[in-house]
């Protein structure tokens, strides 16, 4: 006995699809005992109506024509369970995203909806009740990335008693926030907030910290991921090093200072920054003289702790985890290629906002005094340029960086605090200040700190007598603008972290077209990634500020705790099964299975057939398509079901 429910979704569907007519057509289809159109099927009354129909008409299988199954399949499976049916005896028909929203003609859309319902009715007749199994979940979580997002998630998960491994690519945790001076909207000092948390990570019993480390390989699935972590050789024994920095002082080989955004130089062996956690040195072989044919062994000779070990090799650590949090943050857009009119990086006094944070910071290369790079002079006229490499289709970057407006306003305020007789100019297109107290913050920059806001984009920057001429437009005044500035600060856009795509592939999760990791649904599953058991926290999912990052990290932690505190997980019953009487033992299926889920089975009569190891099968159905006699078939997607669909849509 079949029940069909046609959702109106308010007017989302009913405006284009005649839901009444679809219900009427459904009522006439073979096996259908009940058909009705419901205003909001996923709502409480909607689900109740399904339950009532199941009881009254003794329905045993249900078709729901509504939104995409990617949206509400899980919701309706639960509804069936509550109504006493096997949750897999339900088939969803997508008449919203793939019908009402993409067609204008009611007749056509309705006809298509009827086709789709007919196909689902035919398909569900071939459904059989399915039962998922249970597996134990490993009570340990992996957090990848040690910025504020990863730190917060690790602390929150471990607070529930679940052990955490925190893997950080660079020599220290802290991420981008550690590089900031003061932070909007409260203007509290970044290190004052962050440093205690970094130390807490180091000291926590339940948190295992691995720096200079990256995920090498991921196998298994939710509840039991087997993950290889590569710890890169730093030539320094972490246990012995005391962070005294004697090696760094004496090392003769210069190397770029990543922490200070290239504003100054560091050494081949160095501690990332004075507040680094862990506070140990690491050696970068590509800059070290010894590793480039030289004779130097100064650091080893001078190290009072005997911590330097040139022979140290990469180490690969394997662990099992029940869940993973990706918190790899963001990277900085390289504007020099797409903005030739800003000098291609040739003018030393055109810097990025990230560099400016280091000039403002007391722990920065100038000790917190604002000094421009070219001649060390204190700037008086400072021009800020928003949206560099953001909201710019000509640079292939239409997206908004979402934090540029706010940190630019912040930097104007801090400039005034550092240099009272300075003047800041902010070129902007729209001031995006949507958070709590943000608008007030921007107003303060304008009124109390006297920043001049100029609504318009900059077209060119060029040097003149030791200054930089910024040519822009004041669209509100309707005229061109020229500023002779001592320093120009570019709010360069945020990109996905370098290597984010590669990590996403290993984790089997998706990235969106801007390269950031994709959540399953912005409202329904905002911290869940495409693969079960993988969650997203912070700027790796999209540009965001610290408050939003911290909130999302907490949410991701809650999801991990929720998942792992149950102890065991339900497995999907959508796996393949072999019909031994048909199997010819050719093992084509085994050749194609990506997960090694097919084994040999010797039957009582001595025949060798294929057998699916259910705990390994992920339900891709690739074996189905390979099997010549059609002996292996995927539950929920059997040949019979797909053929039934085919025939019905073409009727």
């Amino acid at each position, binding site marked *: 006995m079949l029940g069909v429910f046609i959702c109106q979704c308010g007017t989302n569907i009913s405006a284009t699809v005649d839901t009444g007519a679809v219900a009427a057509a459904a009522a006439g289809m073979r096996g259908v005992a009940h058909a009705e159109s419901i205003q909001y099927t996923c709502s409480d009354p909607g689900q109740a109506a399904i339950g009532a129909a199941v009881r009254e008409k003794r329905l045993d299988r249900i078709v729901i024509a509504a939104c995409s199954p990617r949206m509400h399949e899980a919701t309706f499976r639960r509804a069936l369970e509550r109504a006493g049916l096997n949750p897999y005896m339900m088939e969803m028909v997508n008449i919203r995203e793939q019908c009402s929203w993409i067609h204008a*003609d009611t007749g056509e859309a309705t006809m298509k909806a009827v086709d789709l319902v007919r196909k689902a009715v035919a398909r569900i007749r071939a459904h059989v009740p399915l039962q998922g199994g249970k597996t134990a979940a490993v009570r340990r979580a992996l957090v990848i990335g040690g910025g504020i997002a990863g730190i917060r998630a690790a602390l929150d998960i471990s607070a529930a008693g679940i052990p955490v491994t925190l893997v950080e690519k660079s020599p220290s945790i802290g991420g981008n926030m550690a590089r900031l001076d003061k932070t909007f909207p409260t203007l509290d000092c970044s290190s004052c907030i962050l440093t205690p948390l970094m130390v807490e990570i180091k000291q926590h019993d339940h948190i295992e910290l691995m720096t200079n480390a990256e995920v090498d390989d991921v196998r298994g699935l939710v509840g039991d991921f087997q993950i290889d972590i590569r710890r890169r050789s730093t030539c320094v024994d972490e246990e012995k090093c005391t962070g005294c920095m004697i090696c760094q002082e004496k090392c003769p080989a210069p190397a770029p200072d990543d922490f200070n955004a290239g504003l100054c130089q560091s050494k081949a062996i160095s501690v990332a920054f004075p507040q680094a956690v862990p506070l140990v040195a690491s050696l970068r072989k590509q800059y070290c003289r010894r590793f480039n044919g030289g004779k130097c062994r100064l650091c080893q000779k001078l190290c009072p702790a005997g911590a330097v070990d040139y022979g140290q090799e990469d180490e690969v650590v394997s662990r099992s985890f029940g869940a993973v949090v990706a918190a790899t943050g963001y990277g900085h857009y390289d504007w020099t290629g797409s903005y030739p009119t800003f000098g291609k990086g040739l003018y030393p006094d055109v810097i990025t906002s990230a560099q400016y944070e280091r000039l403002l910071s007391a722990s920065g290369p100038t000790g917190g005094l604002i000094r421009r790079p070219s001649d060390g002079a204190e700037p008086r006229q400072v021009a800020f340029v928003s949206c560099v490499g953001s909201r710019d289709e000509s640079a292939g970057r239409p997206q908004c960086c979402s934090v540029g407006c706010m940190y630019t306003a912040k930097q104007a305020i801090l400039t005034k605090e550092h240099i009272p007789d300075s003047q800041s100019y902010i070129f902007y297109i729209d001031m995006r200040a949507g958070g709590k107290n943000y608008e007030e913050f921007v107003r303060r920059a304008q009124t109390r700190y006297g920043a001049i806001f100029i609504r318009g984009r900059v077209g060119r920057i060029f040097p003149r007598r030791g200054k930089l001429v910024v040519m822009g437009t004041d669209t509100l005044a309707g005229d061109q603008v020229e500023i002779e500035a001592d320093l120009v600060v570019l709010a360069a856009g945020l990109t996905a972290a370098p290597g984010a795509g590669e990590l996403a592939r290993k984790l089997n999760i*998706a990235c969106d077209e801007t390269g950031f990791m994709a959540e399953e649904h912005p409202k329904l599953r905002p911290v869940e990634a495409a693969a079960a058991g993988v969650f997203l926290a912070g700027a790796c999912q999209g540009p965001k500020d610290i408050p939003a990052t911290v909130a999302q990290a907490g949410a991701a932690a809650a999801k991990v705790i929720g998942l792992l505190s149950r102890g065991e997980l339900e497995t999907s019953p959508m796996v393949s099964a072999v019909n031994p009487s048909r199997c010819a033992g050719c093992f084509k299926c085994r050749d194609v299975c990506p997960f090694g889920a097919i084994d040999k089975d010797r039957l009582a009569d001595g025949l060798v057939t294929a057998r699916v190891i259910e705990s390994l099968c992920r339900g891709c159905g690739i074996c189905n398509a390979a099997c010549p006699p059609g002996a292996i078939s995927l539950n929920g997607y059997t040949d019979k079901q797909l053929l039934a669909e*085919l025939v019905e*849509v073409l009727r």
Partner: protein
Amino acid sequence: MPGKDVKIVGFLCNWCAYAGADMAGMARMEQPAGMRIIRVPCSGRVDPLLVLKAFQEGADGVLVSGCHPGDCHYGSGNYLARRRLELLGRMLPALGIEPERFHYTWVSASEGARWAEIVNTFTEAIKDVDEGS
């Protein structure tokens, strides 16, 4: 009205192309109404016989769409699909089916616009074949 008389069966991978088609819907990108989507877990699930069956049942065109190379949810399913379906495509003329009626392509979950574009051009291409014959 575009695509009125053209019926296309689309086998779409749940993780990429199907989500891409949803994305096109969320962005309200109007498309010809002849496309009938059948959801599969992976383009690797699509048996060439299913495609032939669709033509036998009177489909004007068949489209198989999965994840971009390297992005398969199951690692390598789309490579297998491509190999199989490539062969199939070469066989079609022998069966009296114009090769233009069959298409295998990649669409990611975020490429709504690309999906809409594919439906449009594929529908047009089939109409051209129909008119030509």
